[in-house]
């Protein structure tokens, strides 16, 4: 916690290529660049997860036939990378002034072999865990936007992790609120 960092840049709504433009909504594209090496299959699957989460909150119908590009660059990875990317994506959307229906945040839970739940695991804890669950939780009624699991766990354990993640989400939303407050207090 604290050592994973991701830089996010958002461009848009900009002109879309004819092949990519959608007639009734904005076309959202996410690019995830790892710290070393070229993007591979893991980055592609994470890009799709991020894209589907963002599409659920961005009001794309206000900007038809445009393209919104979100570029994420991993600066350092010390565990819980996907939820760090989710939080960076949400802050980028917020900062750019794109119309959003709600905010979202990412929380990672690690299920250890003895059954205890760890939130925001480090890389070491992720390797030792039996299962790692990442949830994207919306600010309206703490609804789940995205859930992805690596490893195996029972349904009850998943419910427990989800409840813990929903409680932790409030801390992240309060952080968003404080950051925005600090930004607008300067002007």
């Amino acid at each position, binding site marked *: 916690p604290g050592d994973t960092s991701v830089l996010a840049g958002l461009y*848009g*709504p*900009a*002109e*879309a290529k004819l092949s990519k433009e959608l007639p009734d909504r904005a076309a959202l594209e996410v690019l995830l660049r790892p710290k070393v090496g070229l993007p591979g299959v893991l980055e592609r699957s994470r890009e799709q997860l991020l894209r589907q989460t963002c599409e659920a*909150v961005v*009001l794309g119908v*206000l*900007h*038809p*036939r*445009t*393209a919104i590009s979100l570029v994420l660059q991993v600066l350092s990875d010390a565990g819980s990378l996907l939820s760090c990317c989710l939080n960076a994506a949400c802050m980028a959307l*917020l900062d*750019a*002034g*794109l*119309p*959003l*229906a*709600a*905010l979202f945040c990412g929380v990672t839970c690690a299920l250890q072999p003895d059954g205890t739940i760890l939130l925001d695991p480090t890389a070491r804890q992720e390797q030792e865990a039996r299962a790692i669950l990442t949830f994207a939780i*919306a*600010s*309206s009624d703490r609804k789940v936007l995205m859930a992805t699991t690596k490893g195996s766990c029972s349904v009850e354990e998943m419910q427990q992790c989800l409840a813990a993640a929903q409680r932790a989400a409030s801390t992240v*939303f309060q952080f*968003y*609120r404080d950051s*925005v*407050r600090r*930004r*607008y207090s*300067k*002007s």
Partner: protein
Amino acid sequence: GTAAEALVGQVVLPGDLLLLPAHYDEDAEGERLRLSAGTAPQGRLLCGPGLRRSGAGLLVTKCGLLRHRPAGGGAYWVDSQQKRYVPVKGDHVIGIVTAKAGDVFRLDVGGSEPASLSYLAFEGATKRNRPNVQVGDLIYGQFVVANKDMEPEMVCIDSSGKSSGMGIIGQDGFLFKVSLGLIRKLLAPKCEIIQELSQLYPFELVLGMNGRIWVKAKTVQQTLIIVNILEACEYMTAEQRKQALAKLSGT
């Protein structure tokens, strides 16, 4: 949700639901009975940028400070910081001519699409008397058509046919981009920044709502000084700005 009046002047985030006072609901239901409504405030509530109607209240869609204007039925909007411009009907903007296609010029206004400007939309332009516009010229005009479904269209005359300051911007000068919030601050009546700068050097200034500013002063050096001050105004407080200007007028 929380009551809208309680949050005026405070930071709101997307997803916050604002509840309106009950008399606005009566207005909505009593539209058929408008002639007999006496005590409810007249006029409809205006839902400005950053807000969307949702059920009985307003849903916040952008982060920023919530503002309220009680006049004319009341209006709520969110004051947000943004750099990307989205064309709005009636906005005065600075556009750069990128192409001439038959009778129409294509202008880059900083939005997602180029805007179109007909050659007849200038004061005193007829089919024989065409305006002298080249690719790369700067044009100050306003939007007559600007919605999400159509290509934006601009004109350089107002509704009575007069140009009122719009048209081709002259030679020389310097064009640069700032955030939309700074432009709104500069366009407020009796803006301190512009008054202080005018005491420094005389200069010509055109402000476009798309974040573009064009400045021209007597010499290139004076122009660049004014450009640097305007760009820095975004992050400086009033005292820092006064100190910087005092240093410049002293030297």
